[in-house]
């Protein structure tokens, strides 16, 4: 019983990170109908940029609350600019090209980012050193013992997604974003600067992916290498489709469902089925495409002829 609860919590924590990345996929799809395959690599760049900034600042300073906050916002800003640049130079020239052209370009951008990261930071894994700031005590709930650092990631992820939700539903930019996602031409006729709104979308999505990369690697000290974004990127893509691509709450739901499904597959029956852990993501994807192609929260749309 407690083991199940613990598995569930572990799943929610992993899922929140997937959700954070999935939101970027979903937003870009919403405004451009494009799967931005380079998105997972922005996660990786976020981790590397954070590590570089922390090393420049000195890890002692970086481990303080103001120090880490500074690094956090700088990393988000740098990756937001990266996202805007990717859109400006790779996708905008292809806005009127067939969708498949843009899709292939996205794969190209992904490979470019991985190769550039290898050039800049090398292929060997790097790690954040243990930082005092994140040396947190375990939390006990009944027989469940969990480390507080995972809750920290969970809460920060949920906070960032709430902030995004607020921007999209309660601000003028958000309203414009939703208008653009409905119809570019109509939005432009209403005086909305479509290019600017698309840039903002990329900036926000990339910042969230970078936040995920930085948080995971800084708080839990996992490795950072040029390919570290590939798997989370793929899983987040599946999460976005699972929840209904183009749908922001859907990305959250999809991420959490994926995280929990993975945790159960990896952890149940003494780990007997753990080799199925990565497969479950794609099994879920296939099932959802068969039975509910629009996703859990998506609405089926009628193609207008």
């Amino acid at each position, binding site marked *: 019983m407690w083991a199940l609860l613990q598995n569930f919590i572990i799943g929610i924590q992993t899922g929140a990170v997937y959700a954070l990345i999935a939101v970027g996929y979903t937003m870009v799809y919403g405004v451009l109908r494009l799967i931005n395959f380079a998105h997972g690599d922005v996660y990786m760049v976020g981790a590397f940029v954070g590590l570089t900034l922390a090393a420049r600042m000195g890890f002692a300073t970086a481990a303080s609350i103001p120090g880490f906050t500074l690094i956090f916002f700088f990393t988000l800003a740098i990756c937001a600019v990266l996202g805007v640049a990717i859109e400006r130079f790779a996708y905008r020239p292809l806005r009127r090209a067939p969708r498949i052209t843009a899709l292939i370009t996205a794969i190209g951008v992904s490979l470019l980012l991985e190769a550039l990261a290898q050039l800049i930071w090398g292929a060997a894994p790097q790690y954040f050193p243990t930082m005092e700031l994140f040396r947190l005590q375990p939390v006990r709930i009944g027989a469940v013992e969990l480390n507080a650092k995972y809750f920290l990631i969970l809460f920060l992820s949920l906070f960032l997604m709430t902030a995004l939700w607020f921007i999209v539903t309660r601000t003028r930019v958000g309203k414009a974003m939703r208008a653009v996602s409905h119809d570019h031409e109509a939005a432009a006729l209403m005086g909305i600067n479509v290019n600017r709104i698309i840039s903002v979308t990329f900036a926000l999505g990339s910042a969230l992916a970078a936040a995920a990369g930085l948080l995971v690697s800084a708080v839990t000290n996992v490795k950072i290498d040029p390919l570290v974004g590939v798997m989370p990127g793929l899983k987040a893509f599946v999460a976005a489709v699972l929840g209904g691509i183009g749908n922001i709450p859907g990305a959250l739901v999809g991420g959490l469902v994926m995280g929990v499904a993975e945790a159960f597959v990896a952890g149940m029956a003494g*780990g007997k089925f*753990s080799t199925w852990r990565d497969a479950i993501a794609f099994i879920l994807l296939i099932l959802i495409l068969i039975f509910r192609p629009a996703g859990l929260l998506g609405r089926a749309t009628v193609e207008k002829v």
Partner: protein
Amino acid sequence: MIRKLTAGVAVVAAASVLAGCPPSGGGASGGGSGSGPILVGYYGDLTGPTATFGTSTREGVDLAVEEINQDPPLGRPLEIRAEDDQGKSEQAVSVVTKLVDQDQVVAVLGEVASSNSLAAAPVCQRANVPMITPASTNPQVTQVGDYIFRICFIDPFQGSVMAKFAANSLNAKRAAILWDAKSDYSKGLRDFFKQTFPGQIVAEPSYSAGDTDFNAQLNAIKQANPDVIFVPGYYTEVGTIARQARDQGIKAPLIGGDGWDSPKLFESAGKALDGSYFSNHYSAESTDPRVQDFISAYKKKYNGKVPDAMAALGYDAAKILADSLKRAGATDGPKLRDAIAQTKDFAGVTGNISLDADRNATKPAVVLQISGDRFKYVETVEP
């Protein structure tokens, strides 16, 4: 993963185009015959997730070649052609094909990871070029054919060393195993540990190399309440596994094999592995003059760096090759193969090396304990 595959194909294609450009060795003097240097191939992961394996081995090989060339075998100096396989099996096949077909090397040294050695060994076997792997411990590697040798112990032995150590020295009755489903090395060690461990195996979840989140598997292990956790993986993942185990409040010691050996282990694990144990090929703390001479020569060449076991094995592999060349008196495949096969009581840094009929080395293993920032010698286990 289709895009990765396409990328791989593109890289391989590009590499073979580039490789075709320079005249490599030239037809006549291609490694074997002639009077130029004797070309020897080396392949390993000089970059990638377990890059210290490849780079350490290379450093050991280079040091050995430097010493060998003061009195070269057959009066011709050795020249190493090194290739980076990035730790990928498919890349290993392509670079070894290049070494064998284009550079026409007389022998190949490498790899560390058993999966990569297994991938490339058939290339050497088909071309009748002897391959000596310094550190691949999976039994299947040398079963590829009679041109494939190794100078390290094999996993049935290594697995039994750690199983006995857990049972006798750590008094463990219940063991859990966390293994890497992508690695032949890890699977082999898991099986051999299970065969020898006298107590109960309470859980054996797996992960995939490259994973960064092991919490769900560790939770399964935690529920099973083991006395010891056997993690037959590579250092990149082991450190993270240890951190996440300690974060979940798992107190049982972790034990593992030679895949843990890397100076990078401390970076990935922080202090989480303090007090854990692993089996290895040699201990830098040995007082044997052979070991101490090697360590001081290595430190001199590489700015005070302490050699890990991969460096020591790379060094021994190159030395054994030179010794065999001397005994063979020729560089052609069959003669060289026979000479290597006859290696007996070779005094290596990693112990006395004799090759058996299956082309494996019979050697003792050492158990090391991780203590602060060093690997403390615990005991030597004879085969």
